[in-house]
C-alpha cells in the first residue's frame, strides 16, 4: 500500500522545478544566437531593405527621391550596363580558374608533403593579409609597369603575343589591360582558394591513397578517382569564396585597369559616389546579387557536394 501511494505524489512536487530548468536549457541556444542576429539585422537586413526601397524610387538629388515603385530602373540599368556585367563574370571566372590551378597544387603540397613545414607554409599563405589590400594592389601597378622587368620578360618569351591574341593585352603593355585586372584579382583572392582546399585535403585519410594504390591505381588515377573527388567540398567553397567577392570587386579594375576594363563594381561605385543616381546604383547591386545567387545555386547543384559532407 505505502509503496503504491508514494509515486503519484512525488512527481507532482518535483515537476515544476525540473520543467523550469529544462526550459532554461532550451532557451540557451537562442540567447547565444541573439548577438549575431542583432548584428545581421542592423548591418545586413536593414541596409538591404533600404537599398531595395531606393532601387524603386525616382527623382533627383535636388528634388529628393520618392518611392514610386518604378521597376523600369532595373531594366534600364541592365540593358545599359550588361557589358560590364558580362565582363565582371568573365574576369571573376578567369581569376577563379587561375586561383584553382595555382592553389590546388600548393594546398596539396601543404596537406600531404610539407611535413614539419606545414604550419610555416600556412602562415605564408595568409602573410599578405598583414598588409593592406590597397597597398598590395598598388604594388602590382609597379610590378606590371610599362617597360618594367616583368613586362619585358613576358614580351620576350612571347607570352604577350598569346594574351593579345586572346584579347587580354594590347601591344607590349600589361597595365591597364584585362590581363592586369585578372592578375590582380587572382593574386588578391588566392588565399581564399587555398585555405578551404587545404582544409578539405588535410581531412583525407592518407590510408585511402594506400588502399587505392594497393588496388592497382597508378598515382595519377589515385588523384583522379580518390583525392580529387574527396576534395570537392574544398573546391566548391574555395571557388565560391573567390568568385563571389571577385565578381563584385572594383579596386583591381580601378587601380590596374582602364575605362575599357570597368567591372560592374566600378559602375555601381561611380553611380553612387560620382553620378549620385542612387536608384540605378541600388538596382545594379540587386541585379548582381541575383545573378550570383542563381549561378551559385546551379553550381552547387551540379557539383553535388551534399553527398560528400
Amino acid at each position, binding site marked *: 500500500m505505502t509503496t503504491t501511494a508514494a509515486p503519484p505524489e512525488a512527481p507532482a512536487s518535483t515537476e515544476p522545478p525540473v520543467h523550469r530548468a529544462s526550459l532554461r536549457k532550451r532557451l540557451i541556444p537562442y540567447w547565444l544566437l541573439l548577438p549575431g542576429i542583432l548584428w545581421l539585422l542592423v548591418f545586413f537586413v536593414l541596409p538591404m531593405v533600404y537599398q531595395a526601397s531606393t532601387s524603386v524610387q525616382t527623382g533627383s538629388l535636388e528634388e529628393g527621391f520618392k518611392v514610386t515603385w518604378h521597376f523600369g530602373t532595373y531594366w534600364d540599368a541592365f540593358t545599359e550596363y550588361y557589358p560590364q556585367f558580362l565582363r565582371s563574370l568573365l574576369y571573376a571566372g578567369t581569376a577563379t580558374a587561375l586561383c584553382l590551378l595555382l592553389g590546388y597544387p600548393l594546398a596539396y603540397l601543404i596537406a600531404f608533403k610539407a611535413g614539419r613545414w606545414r604550419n610555416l607554409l600556412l602562415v605564408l599563405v595568409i602573410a599578405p593579409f598583414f598588409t593592406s589590400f590597397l597597398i598590395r594592389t598598388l604594388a602590382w601597378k609597379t610590378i606590371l609597369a610599362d617597360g618594367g622587368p616583368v613586362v619585358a620578360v613576358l614580351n620576350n618569351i612571347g607570352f604577350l603575343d598569346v594574351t593579345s591574341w586572346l584579347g587580354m593585352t594590347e601591344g607590349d603593355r600589361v597595365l591597364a589591360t584585362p590581363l592586369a585586372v585578372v592578375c590582380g584579382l587572382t593574386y588578391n583572392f588566392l588565399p581564399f582558394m587555398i585555405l578551404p582546399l587545404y582544409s578539405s585535403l588535410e581531412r583525407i585519410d592518407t*590510408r*585511402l591513397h594506400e588502399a587505392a*594504390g594497393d*588496388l*592497382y*591505381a597508378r598515382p595519377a*588515377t589515385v588523384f583522379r578517382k580518390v583525392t580529387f*573527388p*574527396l576534395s570537392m567540398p574544398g573546391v566548391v567553397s574555395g571557388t565560391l569564396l573567390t568568385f563571389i567577392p571577385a565578381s563584385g570587386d572594383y579596386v583591381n579594375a580601378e587601380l590596374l585597369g582602364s575605362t575599357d576594363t570597368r567591372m560592374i563594381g566600378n559602375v555601381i561605385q561611380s553611380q553612387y559616389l560620382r553620378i549620385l543616381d542612387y536608384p540605378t546604383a541600388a538596382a545594379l547591386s540587386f541585379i548582381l546579387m541575383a545573378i550570383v545567387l542563381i549561378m551559385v545555386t546551379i553550381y552547387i547543384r551540379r557539383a553535388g557536394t551534399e553527398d560528400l559532407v
Partner: protein
Amino acid sequence: MTDKTAGGDVRLSGISKHYGTFTAVHPLDLTIPQGSFFALLGASGCGKTTTLRMIAGLEEPSTGTVHLGDREVTDLQPYKRPVNTVFQSYALFPHLSIFENVAFGLRRRGIKSVKKQVDDMLELVQLGQFAQRKPHQLSGGQQQRVAVARALINHPQVLLLDEPLGALDLKLRRQMQLELKRIQTEVGITFVHVTHDQEEAMTMADTVAVMNGGRVEQLGAPAELYENPGTTFVANFLGTSNLIEATVETAGTGAAAGSGSEIVVSASGAVLRLPASRCATTPRTGGKLLVGVRPEKISLVHADEEDTIATGRNKITGRIADSSFIGVSTQYVIDSQVCPELEVYAQNIERDSRLVPGAEVILHWNPEHTFGLDAAQSMLAGTMGDAGIETVEESA
C-alpha cells in the same frame, strides 16, 4: 595482370626496416607457403605491421628482398603487385558506393563487365542487398566484410590482413574469425594476418609467427607454439605459463637427445622432472633453468590427500591465495615457496569444498607437460602486466 600466374610462396629474405636509428624489423627470413593461413602475432610496436606493409609494397625494406613465387617484387610499386590488403581501419572510399568500392580494383585493371563478379563477391560476404549504400551507412562488421570483398575480388596471390578485426566488438570478432577462415578455405588464397590477439591467431592460422622487438621469436603451428614455447615471451604471450626458476640436478643429454632422457631440477626443495626433448636450451648440471607448466595441466588436491597422487608426478606444495569461479573452470592462485602466484585452472567437474583461499594444497602434474627455458631471459617478458611488454619494447 600477373595475378593468374601460378602462385607460389611468399619469401622474405633478410628484410629489415630502419627509421633513422630505430630498427622496426631486424633482418628477417620467412617463407609463407602458398595457400596457408599465416599469422604474424605480437604486441603493438613489434614490427608485424611493418613486415606486412613491406610485402604489400607500402613500405620499402631497408635491406633484403621480397619474392612472390619466383618473382622478385622488392622494388615493385604497390599497384603493380599481385597482393591486396585489408586495412586496419578498412580504408573504404567514402565517396563511392559499396558496389564501386568492390569494383575499384577490377576497373583499374581495365575490366569492363564487372557487374557479375562484384555481385558474386558481395554474395560471398553476404552483403548483396547493400550494393548501393555508402560505406558510412554500414556497421563496422559490414564495412569489414566490404574491405575483404574489395581485396578478394582481385584474386590476389596473397591477401594481407592488417588487424582487420581490431575495431569490432568481441562477439562480432569471433563471428568474423570463423567467416574469414571459411572464406580462406573456400578461395584457397594465401592469407597473411597481422594481429595482437593470441586467441585470434591460434583459432585462425595454420602457422603463427610470434614477433617481439622486430624479430620472430618463434614460428610454428598454434598447438606446437603453445605446448613447446621456445622463449619466456612466447610462453607468456600465448596463454599463461607458470615459470619456476630452478637449479639443474641432472642435465640429461639436452634437447638433441631422444624422448627418453629426462632432466631433473630442484627449486626450494621441490624436485621436478621434465623431458629433455621439451627443453629449449642445453641445461648444465648445477646451472639455472626456467621450468614452465601451463595452468590447465596442473591438478590440485587438498594437502590431506597427498597419498592419492600417483608416483612419478611433479609435485609442489602451497596455499591457495585466491580463487575465482568462472563457470567452466575455477582459477586458483597458489602461493608456494617454490614460486609465488602459481596459476591453476581446474575444470569444475567435482569441486572439493575444502579448496578455498587459505587451504594447504598440493599441485601435481605429469612431467611430460613440463617445458624448460633458458634462465637468462626475463620471466616477465610477454606478460600482460605493464612491466612485461613495456620492458620488451624498450629493449627493442
